[in-house]
């Protein structure tokens, strides 16, 4: 698994729960080094070992932890560049939802060898969507749910999301968009000059 993904797992654990928890996870997972490096690759087994150790150390259900990771990816102040990249997907949450299928290409534009999930979006009715996602590791739907929930908030949209089971070839998510302009949301200045 790409170092970026592993680094995200580590970053989530250290910023949310502190270095001591990460140290415990590392030791339980038998990680042979102190830190993941974002630009290197690691065996999937290491990623899974760390994740399972994290569930164990934190007494968390895997889905709950995955959802928290998804939310953290959008909301953590250090990951503002990532939030910005996501906001490039569209001017509204609806546009964002409808462009989720492009997320793989978008991710690979930024990091060519990144393992991105394959996502399909079906509009069931004008305000309901069914999202099917496939990834190299299990658990993409709860990550996506946390991420989408945070993005809805970011855009100021009111949406209800729930996991919708696992289908052949994909994990499923159901999204109901209740109000696209429910609140102000967070600002996104397209041309903000980067530091």
């Amino acid at each position, binding site marked *: 698994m790409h170092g970026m993904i592993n680094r995200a797992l580590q970053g989530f654990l250290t910023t949310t729960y502190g270095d001591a928890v990460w140290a415990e996870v590392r030791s339980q997972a038998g990680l042979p080094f102190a830190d993941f*490096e*974002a*630009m*290197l690759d690691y065996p999937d087994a290491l990623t899974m070992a760390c994740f399972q150790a994290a569930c164990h150390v934190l007494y968390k259900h895997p889905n709950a932890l995955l959802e928290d990771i998804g939310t953290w990816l959008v909301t953590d102040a250090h990951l503002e*560049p*990532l939030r*910005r*990249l996501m906001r*490039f997907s*569209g*001017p509204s949450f609806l546009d964002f939802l409808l462009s989720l299928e492009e997320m793989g290409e*978008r991710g690979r*534009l*930024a*990091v060519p060898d990144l393992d991105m999930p394959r996502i399909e979006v079906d509009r069931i009715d004008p305000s309901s969507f069914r999202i099917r996602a496939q990834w190299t590791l299990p658990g993409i739907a709860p990550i996506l749910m946390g991420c989408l929930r945070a993005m809805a908030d970011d855009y100021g949209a009111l949406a209800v999301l729930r996991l919708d089971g696992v289908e052949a070839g994909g994990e499923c998510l159901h999204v109901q968009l209740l109000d696209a302009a429910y609140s102000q949301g967070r600002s*996104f*200045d*397209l*041309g*903000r*000059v*980067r530091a």
Partner: protein
Amino acid sequence: MTGLLPSLDRVIGLSEGALDTLLPMHVWADPAGRIVQAGPTLTKMARMGDLTGRSLFRVVEVRRPARVDGAPALAALAGQRIGLVLTRAPHLPLRGALAPLPAGAGMILDISLGLSFARAVAEFGLTLNDFSPCDQTVELLYLHEANASTTALSRHLTRRLEAARAAALSQALTDPLTGLANRRAMDAEIAAALADPTREFGLLHIDLDLFKQVNDGFGHAAGDAVLERVGAVLRHMLRQDDVAARVGGDEFLVILRDCIEPEDLGAVATRLIASIEEPVEFEGHVCRISASIGVTASTDYAERPGLDRLLADTDAALYAAKRAGRGRHAMHGAPDGDLPRRRLDDPMPRPAARAGD
């Protein structure tokens, strides 16, 4: 140019709204160069309020392929790449394309941000809604930001690797050329041996003779070959429990465990010198060196000496061996008379003869 200048025979009508949607940065001017309509994004960028009725040449300044300040001259640029700026933002080069409209309707000039897109988006305060979905400017911006982030990560990794490498080097215990221990490892080894009252040992300080001649005469690669060879000699001639280190350019230290009798130490030193003196062939040259060796034993002292004292005494013995003519060993504490004296300026044994000499 027929591909770029389509016939005006077949004409379609486009509403103002349709033009705004398709070309949000267009401006439509009448044959006299007066603006009939301007797209919403261009209007925002021009910073003059409603542009309708203004002269096009008050809003934009055409610079490429040449400066143009009249409607007929501008119309003549139809189909070409046009370089232009907005009069209120003359430092941001933009790009345009112009098409004539049928009889008396004037012309349409469509504008894009070109390569100044990042600055332009920031300065004009543009949003995602200001671009047509067909315009890839937003994707360029995305890529621009993504690149900045990943470049920062790569730089971070490089810095970390450099720091790790420096740390590893500073902690290294091996001499990379010979594979022997290095100075740091040797000092630790001697200190540990001195600290253990049950351990007695001999210490040899070896300094290569004629090494400089090999290095200067045949080059550094030859010098390295000789040093590697000496490393191999030390590895093969010493016992498992002995330790050899390269502690300087052409200096070596050897700990001989439980070897303390002068005769034994002398025999080892003599054998080492003989092996080191065996010529090394390197790229057609025969490199001949020798070695001088200073010898001490942990038992030379009534009380355990310190590391510095022991090294200084070994060094003094080495100096005595050099002074006595090199290619030999000298014992610490042995009366000078034990060594056959030679004057310092005695000629050295013939160095490094060329192969075939």
